[in-house]
């Protein structure tokens, strides 16, 4: 009996020692000063503070158990990841276009149930957004992205690009390659059009193409995952919008590519992304890290192997 008690004592001491030692491993969450915080109406700020600030700002409020390893390690990893995506305490250092893009992404992350993270919401029920919260956020982002009808600057730019295209007066952009190795290909124009979209958040109109592998996979419903070699190209034009509801393609915004190469793009479920801007097809992203930015946003469409614009299944056609 004495031996058993001594053994239990040793084990308990060892566990306490181990847990104590764990507290010295890893960097706990640090709250740096909020140097350029987001400016928004009070009702929007209230939602952001309640649902987003603990991870996406320098004002993380941690519970006592969040500070104890190993929980603190997980919390620290989540907060660092969240702040690297966007930080509401340094928000005003972002360009207006980036801010707008992130705000629409936030709304969509919430609408598709990706945010707040399930593990966080389980222990922080106040972070869950109500229908009213979502309405408030939708109104906020819509107000930030108003339509400009019959935008003459955009019309003139579109006319100029069309004229240059007719006269073939712009130098051929060749086949540029993005920093992650994904190359532009002009072949997409002979591929099948899989869908067309237009957006009122960033005012664009698009045509989406799939190569033979991608188109066949879509038709046969073999999209989870898409087969190796599938390539999808989206051509994006800035849209000219008219009061009568017309949405017309204006200047060329970009050509965007996603291609499935499971060996090269192991961190993004096999997808390599690329974006070539304007008629000059200037590659977006100075380093291969941009691939992560693209993939992070595409996580919203994880149910479709990260592809946003698939044609609707027959049961959703009305």
């Amino acid at each position, binding site marked *: 009996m004495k031996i058993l008690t001594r053994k239990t004592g040793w084990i308990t001491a060892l566990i306490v020692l181990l847990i104590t030692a764990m507290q010295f491993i890893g960097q706990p969450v640090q709250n740096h000063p909020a140097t350029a915080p987001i400016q928004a109406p009070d009702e929007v700020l209230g939602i952001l503070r309640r649902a987003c600030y603990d991870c996406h700002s320098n004002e993380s409020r941690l519970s006592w158990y969040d500070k104890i390893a190993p929980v603190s390690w997980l919390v620290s990893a989540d907060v660092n990841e969240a702040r690297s995506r966007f930080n509401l305490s340094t928000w005003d250092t972002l360009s207006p276009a980036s801010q707008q893009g992130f705000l629409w992404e936030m709304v*969509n992350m919430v609408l598709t149930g990706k945010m707040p993270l399930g593990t966080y919401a389980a222990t922080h029920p106040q972070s869950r957004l109500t229908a009213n919260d979502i309405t408030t956020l939708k109104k906020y982002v819509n107000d930030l992205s108003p339509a400009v009808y019959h935008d003459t600057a955009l019309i003139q730019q579109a006319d100029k690009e069309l004229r240059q295209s007719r006269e073939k007066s712009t130098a051929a952009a060749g086949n540029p390659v993005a920093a992650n190795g994904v190359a532009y290909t002009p072949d997409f124009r002979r591929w*099948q059009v899989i869908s067309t979209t237009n957006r009122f958040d960033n005012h664009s109109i698009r*045509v989406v193409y799939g190569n033979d592998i991608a188109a066949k996979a879509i038709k046969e419903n073999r999209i989870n995952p898409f087969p190796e070699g599938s390539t999808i190209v989206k051509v994006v034009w800035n849209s000219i919008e008219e009061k*009568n509801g017309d949405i017309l393609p204006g200047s060329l915004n970009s050509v965007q590519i996603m291609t499935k190469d499971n060996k090269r793009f192991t961190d993004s479920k096999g997808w390599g992304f690329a974006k070539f801007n304007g008629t000059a097809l200037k590659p977006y992203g100075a380093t291969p890290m941009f691939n992560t930015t693209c993939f992070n946003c595409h996580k919203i469409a994880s149910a479709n192997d990260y592809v946003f614009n698939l044609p*609707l299944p027959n049961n959703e*056609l009305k």
Partner: protein
Amino acid sequence: MKNFLLLFLLTVTGACSRPVPDRQHTREIFNAGGLQVITSFANRQQQTMSVLFGNTAAETCALGGYKTHVPGEIFKLVTFKQAGNKYWYGSYINGAVQSIETITAAADAPEHLEYRLERRHGKGRETGPAARISYIFSHSPSVFP
């Protein structure tokens, strides 16, 4: 008899192992028959989204402002119903095909254009061929790299 039984078994097992097409979850892609995109446009009030396809002759004609027609030109305007994109609030995506309109230039008299409405669902398009041709040709080609 033995052979008949064998054939019967093979047929039955073959039928069972063949995957049953799931029409509900199948996705259809409009087959443009090798034609390429000339332009695309939409109308949010009418809740329609359209893609104008064409062959090489049609593309050249469109780039020239639809002024000169050559034999063999084929234009095909596909109009879809607009649908919400459930993966991105802020985006619309094409739904079901509403209509397919084709314009061809006659082989012997290319200035004579033939208009054909291949499919039409729901209300709309009470205007005649000339008005439709004029409407379709009012759309400048999109700028491609």
